[in-house]
């Protein structure tokens, strides 16, 4: 198994002053080293304000980093410069799913036009081809072709999450980054979405990096686990190893909190 994505020395510093006299709030992320293999699932866990979401945004290029390098599918991106040319090829290799799918859908456009956007901007195909691809992908995520004509307010949360998923796999990416994709969903829809992602991952060979507070899901689907604290990776390794023999204090706390909620018999 080869590395599909390598992150080297990714750092981000927040040095914005809010007031002239106020102490500048310094938050530094990284340097982060991360390797992602093809078809692998990596979970990022950690406390609030530990920089998990920021890391996700840095990976997809939504926020510009201060230094570092991302090797993605044999293309090297300098994480500091977010040039238009490199952004386009990056767009089709790495995609993001947002936490609140209802905020990440434009309320004035139909699902079809939302899904059309990545294709229109990144591929040169004509309208008929694009429409065929869109209805293919709608079926793939378990929606109907008719949802092409629906607006955001007509869809339930679960369906909106599926649309977000369809949007992210539209360009056949290699890596999918998700920021708490299951947080807003009820248990049934959550397991449906998890199964859907696992299925797509098998079909398309996607690497899936996701942030979650739900350690049950993490243990269920993640191959590798990353624990973050104050902008640094404090522990990383195989999920099962980390769950059984946590080394770092934060990991111990998180895992202990999880285990105290789960009846002991169900733990293998």
């Amino acid at each position, binding site marked *: 198994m080869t590395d599909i994505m390598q992150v080297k020395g990714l750092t981000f510093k927040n040095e914005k002053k809010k007031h002239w006299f106020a102490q500048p709030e310094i938050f530094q992320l990284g340097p982060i080293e991360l390797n992602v293999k093809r078809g692998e699932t990596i979970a990022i866990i950690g406390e609030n304000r530990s920089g998990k979401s920021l890391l996700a945004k840095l990976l*997809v*290029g*939504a926020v510009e980093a201060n230094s570092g390098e991302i090797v993605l599918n044999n293309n090297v991106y300098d994480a500091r410069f977010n040039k*238009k040319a490199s*952004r*386009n090829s990056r*767009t089709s290799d790495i*995609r*993001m799913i*947002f936490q*609140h799918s209802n*905020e*990440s*859908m*434009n*309320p*004035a*456009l139909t699902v079809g036009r939302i899904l059309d*956007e*990545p294709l229109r*901007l*990144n591929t040169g195909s004509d309208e008929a081809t694009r*429409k065929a691809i869109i*209805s293919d992908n709608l079926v793939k995520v378990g929606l*109907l*072709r*008719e949802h*092409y*004509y*629906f*607006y955001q*307010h*007509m869809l339930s949360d679960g369906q909106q999450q599926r649309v977000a998923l369809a*949007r992210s796999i539209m360009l056949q990416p290699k890596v999918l980054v998700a920021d708490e994709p299951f947080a807003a969903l009820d248990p049934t829809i959550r397991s449906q979405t998890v199964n859907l992602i696992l299925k797509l991952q098998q079909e398309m060979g996607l690497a899936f990096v996701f942030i979650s507070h739900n350690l049950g899901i993490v243990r269920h689907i993640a191959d590798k686990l990353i624990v973050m604290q104050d902008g640094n990776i404090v522990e990383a390794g195989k999920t099962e190893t980390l769950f059984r023999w946590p080394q770092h204090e934060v990991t111990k706390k998180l895992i202990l909190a999880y285990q105290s909620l789960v009846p002991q018999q169900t733990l293998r």
Partner: protein
Amino acid sequence: MARFSLYDEEFHPSPWQQTWQEFRASHIALVGLFVLLMFIIFSVFAPWLVPYDPLEQNVDGLLIPPSWQLNGTVSHLFGTDALGRDLFSRIIYGCRVTLGSSFILVILAMLVGVSIGAIAGIMSGVRSSILNHLLDALMAIPTLLIAIIIVAILGTGLVNSMWAITLALIPQFIHHTRTFVRNEMKKEYVLASRLDGASNFQLFFNSILPNMIELLVVQGTLALSIAVLDVSALGFLNLGAQPPLPELGAILADGLDVAYIAPWNVALPGLTIFLMVLSINVVGDGLRSALRKRVSH
């Protein structure tokens, strides 16, 4: 692929259909819309609707009273003025001139204001602020005063007064657009489109503009009522449209000379301006509350 609605028993209206349903629920707004539509039809089809040429003078029929008075005739529905011109034809042409020029200048102000506001909203920092407050000085002076200054420099005329009113209307469009664009830029769907590879220009036209149409409609109706009032006020003061041109304010000013012997020459054009502004405001108000209800549901 045709829309296939076998499972679709619930009716799912698009945002625009939803707005129309909310708008239709208010009877007053609907009546206002009909009155406004009547004025628009009058303005568009004026040459085919008028019984007489609005400029044709008839020495045999000076100051004929309107048809509902005892000595009025049905051939001159609203009577004639001091030069024997048919008032009904003049008012219909007056709607055309007043409403038409107001429409043109509102659209012009909207185009300029929205483009400046959008650029200011997408940019940040001092440059954005400068663009935002570029024309704010105009807001300090009343429209009529600006118009008088411009007319003093360029000379009287309908076109010059239109420039003045356009200039005065631009700042409010800039401010509203900038605030709206700034708020939308923070939302996640814009970030999502940005990650799709959209440039700022594409972002504005494909993602933000479809959401902004409602704001533009509401602001446009407000601006339209201001424009109608200002165009006719300048016409009345003899600074805008010049007398032979049938403009509602100018017709009103003409009628003022004979107000004691022929009061209909003042009452009817005045009533027309009143109805026009009222219907525009009622429609604008209905639209605004319909949009608010749509968002809150």
